[in-house]
């Protein structure tokens, strides 16, 4: 019985991490109709920055830097690559993101080499045992963090001006523009937010029981794609958080 509970907790925890990745993916798709194949490389970039900085800055600051780096990378892709091609075919843009992914991933794997990097998280391999059920602290941290982030996102999406602008732009971009919504800002915000969420996911993909960040981490991120594509066919609010 306790094994079963452990499996469930671990499974839900991993699922919530993939939900973070899928959420970013869907936000970009909803705001810009672009399928972002560069998402895994944004994740890898966030994780890498956290990994190289945590010795000097400490964990929290390094994580903040990783999140900022991934958000910045996402914003940069939007401004430098996609904005120019705004009215072009969305399928072409998706292919462009594959190009971005290849360039980013190649550079990051070259830097990482054969190493396995720690992100310097405070939970390490500690286990908590409650009523005979043993769960790694990292899994609990992942579950709590992902739940908080996804809830915050859904609340903002529902209730803030930003959320209304996002949803209006996703439903009918031209009419949203007629209402004074700046579509370029919506799109930029979506890419930055997706990058930030990916960096948080990178942390929880690489902590215990995973040995750390290596060049294979982005493959793990690809597992979120089916979830994103299935969930992406319906709008995120008020549906399953995994969407």
């Amino acid at each position: 019985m306790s094994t079963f509970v452990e499996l469930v907790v671990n499974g839900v925890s991993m699922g919530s991490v993939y939900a973070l990745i899928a959420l970013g993916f869907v936000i970009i798709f909803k705001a810009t109709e672009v399928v972002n194949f560069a998402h895994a490389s944004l994740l890898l970039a966030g994780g890498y920055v956290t990994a190289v900085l945590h010795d000097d800055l400490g964990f929290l600051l390094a994580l903040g830097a990783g999140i900022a780096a991934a958000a910045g990378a996402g914003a940069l892709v939007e401004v430098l690559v996609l904005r120019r091609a705004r009215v072009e075919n969305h399928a072409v843009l998706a292919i462009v993101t594959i190009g971005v992914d290849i360039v980013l991933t190649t550079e990051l794997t070259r830097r990482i080499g054969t190493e396995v990097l720690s992100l310097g998280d405070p939970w390490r391999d500690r286990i908590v045992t409650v009523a005979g059920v043993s769960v790694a602290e990292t899994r609990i941290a992942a579950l709590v963090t992902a739940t908080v982030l996804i809830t915050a996102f859904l609340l903002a999406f529902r209730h803030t001006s930003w959320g209304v602008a996002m949803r209006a732009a996703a439903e009918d971009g031209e009419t949203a523009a007629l209402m004074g919504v700046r579509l370029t800002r919506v799109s930029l915000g979506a890419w930055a937010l997706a990058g930030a969420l990916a960096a948080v996911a990178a942390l929880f993909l690489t902590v215990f029981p995973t040995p750390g960040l290596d060049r294979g981490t982005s493959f793990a991120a690809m597992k979120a794609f089916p979830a994103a594509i299935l969930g992406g066919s319906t709008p995120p609010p008020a549906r399953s958080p995994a969407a």
Partner: protein
Amino acid sequence: MASGNLEVRDLSVSYGRAVRALRGVSLDVPAGSVTAVLGANGAGKTSLLRAISGTLPFHRGGVDAGGVRLGGRALTGLRPAAVVRTGVVQVPEGRRVFGRLTVEENLKAGALGARGRAGTAEARARVLDLFPVLAERARQRAGLLSGGEQQMLAIGRALMARPSVLLLDEPTLGLAPLVAARIGATVAEINRQGTSVLLVEQNAALALELASTAYVLEVGEVAARGASADLAAGDELRRRYLGAAAPPTERGEDTGDAADAAAGRGDRPTLARWTG
């Protein structure tokens, strides 16, 4: 609230550098007025509004020559959001409410482009005063509203930005005469409260009743312009719209006063229209 005249000068618009939609169109919307633009399908009415509001790029279109000014300030080349901030707001053809958002959220969306957040509550009160049905349906998805209610929402949404010039693209399209008359009366009230209106219509009778001045567009050019009363009295419109040998327009027998208002007086041309 009016912030100057809207002036369109020698405007030429084309799509994909191939389809010429407007050729050298000039027109004025004096501050505080209702100005109508009439024209058959494909005459270029919507293209004119797109050129003003900056949405031609969404259709691979662009302004080739001429331009639009508001109180001397050039609007041509501005992004749609920037045009909204100058106080020129468009209600698009076919209403285009955000169907998955609630009525309340649609109004919120309309306020996103407002100049400054102060005054949003006031604008909202004014909208709900004009369209009480929107208050009743506040929490309903906009996609569930009837066509007439959606049109009211589309107009209300645009008013949330507190425009000085309101651009309306066929607001009575596909509406029953009674509802069309209601929309017409509301447009008159909005204008009375100080907003200039550029009204694009195929319902010539209604448009001429509301507007002081009207322009007739024909294949991308201004074919006629004049005071509404003159256009309504003359046979110019009748000839252009209905064809010289057109039979007299059939009028409903027992649709009541409002339908009469919508159709105009008996001597005014009523346009046969297709819907759907």
